[in-house]
């Protein structure tokens, strides 16, 4: 069994730690998600959402490199993501690509089936503690990687020599593929963080602050949204993104499943505009937007893939929030037809608006 898994931003680092620690052999699909998208768009249903198309491209690339089993997480709705495993299996089957899928979710057949899947995933490891240890280590790495990314968000707009952060960070994303296991990757993260801290920054600068909200895949996977977070940083904007890989793993998958308390401040913040959970990350989008506004951010950018159901609802209620809290909100919708230049024009115009607003409030 040679495993593979779909890309989503830096999740490959977390997955790598998990599989390294379990001692399972695996293939990481090439990092280029734009190419994966063009492959996936050929075979996926036209109106399927973007992440499904990218996933398919990742699988087909990994299959060419010898992978035969796919590891993904699942869900039970109402967002389409919960049914990805079945639709993807159907498409691969009709393409004649023989790949198994291990979906980590609560199956219809009950919890015993889930245990069986984990058992299979861990290479039939009998030592339960080793499995739990590997999961814990992976969760810890995901938190460290997210912290590292936050550090780049702070450094990028303030650095005096433009491009310093990008050089260090993209080198990290390449080098991490050669690091091995929890210890190796943790060391690399530590070194990278030190390098980032050593970058010369202009401390007097007060950059514009923009909160990025929206559907998890397109916000976390920077390449899908034309490296929006990086581009904004290089235009002198400090970005923040409340939805993270580690938050998703720790809050969404563990704490929720084990019924432990976790931060639900966004639920209350969203309440005046969106009363209930409707699936996906709509509640997070609306709640985080309200929280960003209260924290004094200059603007909010919502990103989602075309036809994403929960985010369409969020988009419909955001104008009210924007009016009430007096904060500009821009929505960017992404699909395989999106062109980078058009988006950059819109982003630059949005930044001009934010700049003027700030000047007016000071002057």
């Amino acid at each position, binding site marked *: 069994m040679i495993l593979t898994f779909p890309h989503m931003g830096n999740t490959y680092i977390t997955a790598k730690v998990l599989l390294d620690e379990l001692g399972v052999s695996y293939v990481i699909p090439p990092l280029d998600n734009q190419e994966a998208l063009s492959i996936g768009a050929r075979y996926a249903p036209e109106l399927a959402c973007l992440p499904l198309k990218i996933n398919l491209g990742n699988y087909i690339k990994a299959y060419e490199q010898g992978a035969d089993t796919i590891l993904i997480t699942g869900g039970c709705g109402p967002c389409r993501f919960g049914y990805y495993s079945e639709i993807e299996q159907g498409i691969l089957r009709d393409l004649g690509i023989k790949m198994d899928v291990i979906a980590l979710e609560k199956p219809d057949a009950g919890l015993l089936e889930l245990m069986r899947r984990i058992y299979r995933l861990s290479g039939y490891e009998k030592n339960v503690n080793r499995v739990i240890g590997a999961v814990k280590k992976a969760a810890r790495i995901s938190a460290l990687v997210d912290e590292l990314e936050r550090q780049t968000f702070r450094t990028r707009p303030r650095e005096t020599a433009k491009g310093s952060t990008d050089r260090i960070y993209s080198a990290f994303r390449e080098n991490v593929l050669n690091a091995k296991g929890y210890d190796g990757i943790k060391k690399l993260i530590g070194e990278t963080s030190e390098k980032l801290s050593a970058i010369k920054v202009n401390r007097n600068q007060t950059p514009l602050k923009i909160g990025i909200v929206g559907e998890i895949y397109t916000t976390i996977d920077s390449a899908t949204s034309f490296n929006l977070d990086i581009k904004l940083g290089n235009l002198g904007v400090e970005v923040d993104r409340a939805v993270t890989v580690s938050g998703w793993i720790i809050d969404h998958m563990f704490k929720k499943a084990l019924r432990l308390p976790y931060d639900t401040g966004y639920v209350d913040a969203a309440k005046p505009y969106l009363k209930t959970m409707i699936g996906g990350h*709509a509640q997070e989008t609306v709640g985080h937007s309200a929280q960003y506004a209260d924290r004094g951010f200059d603007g909010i950018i919502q990103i989602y893939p075309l036809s994403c159901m929960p985010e*369409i609802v969020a988009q419909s209620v955001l104008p009210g929030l924007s009016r009430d809290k007096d904060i500009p909100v821009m929505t960017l919708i992404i699909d395989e037809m999106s062109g980078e230049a058009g988006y950059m024009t819109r982003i630059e115009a949005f930044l001009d608006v934010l700049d003027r607003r700030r000047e007016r409030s000071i002057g």
Partner: protein
Amino acid sequence: MSIILMGCFIMKKVGIPRGLSYYEFYAAWKVFFEELGAEVVLSDRTSKKIIDDGVKACVDEACFAVKIFFGHVINLMGRADCIFIPRLTSISRNEYVCPKFGGLPDMVRGSIGGLPFIIDAEINMRKDKNGGLKAAYEAGSFFTTDRALIRSAYNKAVKSGYGVLPAEAAAPAGVLKNEGRLKIAVIGHGYNLYDSCLNMNLLNKIRAENAEVITLDMLDRDSIIKRSGTIPKKMFWNFGSKAVGAAFCLLDRQDIDGILYVMAFGCGVDSFVCDYVERLIRREKDLPFAVITLDEHSGEAGLNTRIEAFIDMIRWRKKNDINLPSHGQYLHHGESSAG
């Protein structure tokens, strides 16, 4: 709180938009509100104006049916004391409806100004079979404080109204001839199939070709539910599991000549259900299958051509398949979603 208390006395006319869940639940809702002494005001039938108003008010990315629903809400403004837009999170065990149904009242509030009071009781029967009654208590509290009355109104509504289709769903009499009659199954959401303005009179166009139309509502409900659980992972959308179950039922039958899948552009649920059903049918049986995607830019001439071509193809393969093959193994493969 004062609005709610006042509501008990003022609200006499409750408006129901003729869109989305109207096509499934209107009969029950009408009984429920009338039992509580309210007058039900229904929005007008979908028209060009209603579509235009809805398209203008709604975000571009929503599906066509949601946009039309917005138009119906606008149509009701000034005609009713309140508008009933329930939050349909789930109407069946372990299944959801669609995120947009769950957030519908929020979407309407966020997009249309000057609305009357909106009754947005949440119907959630995913884990709780009493979810319907709970929603009834909430919705009914705006008309009466008598919980027993609400309960009896709810029971009457479920008994006499559940599963009753609205007038739009009825087939006109006398169109079909017995000789050479085809049977075409049409899979799609009720609100896409029965709103003849939305789909440019699609069902009657098929009937005009002397083909009987069979929709999901005409199949046996119990066998649909039974068959929907036979796939490895059951669909978690109410419509999805219904459509998959229905596809199995249609494959079992020998009298179906072709299957049409009708969806609205941008419908997330349909994008997956359609793909699943199409692959299922193609694997199991050599049966003509086509997809029709509708939105506010659809042209009627294009629709006519596609329906005529679909029916012609079915008739030709019946008539002269030996002399001139009008279908092959992969004839429609990969071309179904064009247009």
